[in-house]
């Protein structure tokens, strides 16, 4: 019997991981620093902005103790720009992810390997016009939790749906030119999109691998055979030199 669990993460799990993203809040009440496992939170003093993990921000928002500042890329203008990039500038590829906030140099640094959700890609200081790794789930969560903090929630909602449609169509289209090696690049694809497309893409690749398997075996045998020939002739030459 097959294991009933699907490989990969379900949308709910991806959304759970997304709650570790840092967002910027504007507190309405004072709150002392909390000693959490991931480190102490900054002490909240209204009206100073502070960065908080999304789950804590949602909790405070629900209790009306804070307002969430939406990240700049979730602004309708920024989404318009991204949508335009996706449909007109580059109808084949995905819009690029935000640039790495820590300068990448030739010398390896400990900040090089930091990845979402530990990058500040959804705070108020994040760059506009780039979709971060958790864009879809973060957008949906914010739309659900704090539509009053967003500039134009209905427009943002339709824009997010449009973006999702366009990008999923691209992911599906890409499987047409799949080879046995796999998808060429997933740069700029978000966590939720990977979760949605995983079953299909893995299935297609599996099928191609099976169909190409005996061709692969034949090629390897031929190479081995030719390699053996080469080895023998090399030995022969050595013998001659001696």
């Amino acid at each position, binding site marked *: 019997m097959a294991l009933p669990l699907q490989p990969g993460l379900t949308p709910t799990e991806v*959304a759970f991981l997304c709650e570790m993203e840092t967002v910027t809040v504007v507190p309405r009440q004072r709150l002392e620093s909390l000693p959490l496992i991931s480190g102490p939170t900054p002490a909240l003093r209204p009206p100073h902005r502070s960065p908080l993990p999304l789950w804590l921000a949602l909790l405070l928002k629900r209790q009306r103790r804070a307002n969430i500042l939406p990240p700049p890329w979730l602004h309708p203008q920024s989404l318009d720009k991204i949508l335009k990039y996706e449909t007109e500038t580059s109808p084949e590829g995905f819009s690029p992810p935000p640039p790495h906030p820590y300068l990448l140099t030739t010398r390896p640094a400990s900040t090089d390997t930091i990845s979402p959700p530990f990058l500040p890609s959804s705070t108020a200081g994040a760059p506009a016009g780039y979709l971060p790794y958790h864009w879809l789930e973060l957008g*949906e969560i914010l739309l659900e939790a704090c539509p009053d903090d967003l500039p134009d929630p209905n427009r943002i909602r339709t824009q997010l749906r449009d973006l999702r449609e366009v990008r999923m169509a691209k992911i*599906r289209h890409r*499987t047409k030119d799949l080879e046995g090696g796999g998808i060429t690049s997933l740069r700029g694809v978000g966590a939720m999109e990977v*979760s*949605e497309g995983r079953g299909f893409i893995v*299935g297609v690749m599996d099928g191609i691998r099976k169909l190409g*398997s005996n*061709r692969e075996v034949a090629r390897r045998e031929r190479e081995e055979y030719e390699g053996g020939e080469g080895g023998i002739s090399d030995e022969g030459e050595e013998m001659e030199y001696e």
Partner: protein
Amino acid sequence: MSYYDLDSILTDGQKVPTTIELEVPGLGYLDNAPGRPLKAGTKVDLPLWLSQMLAVSAYSTKHIADLEPPSCLAPRVMNALKADPKSVDIRALSSHFYEFAVRILELLDEVLVYQDACAVLMETWRRRAAEISDHASNAGQNRGGGGMGSTDGVEFLRGLDDSERYLFRAAHDGTKAMRSWMGEMTKK
């Protein structure tokens, strides 16, 4: 391929035209002549697991059986797949078409134009997969609507073989999980 894999067991049961090169006593019922021996040179349809074993084993330098490409891999089918993969009813050819084709290609690499058949099958799989994903992401959305082209889709989906049905299911499950999560988000 696991020992308990039902699909590989079912693939093993697909019939292959086999020519018996040796007279076998008492097996005449395979050729509608019960009670008599099966004569050498008779062509019978045998399941893959049996004909494979007969084809690879030898009886004193003589092959016991000779395989022929089955009808589902005939040049006619290959040409149809090359022309338009989406219009071929693969399920009518074989319920486990791709797996069966791979097994046959393993056995008959000289008989079929080998590389070509492999390339055609891969291209077919790729093109049909794209079509499947389009249907899977739209399935269940316009239920009861039955707009333009919906009968076309039904026709295509009926012609999927088993591995393609799994693919359809995988694609559909992804979309469904996503849609239900987004629905939950908006409902709350």
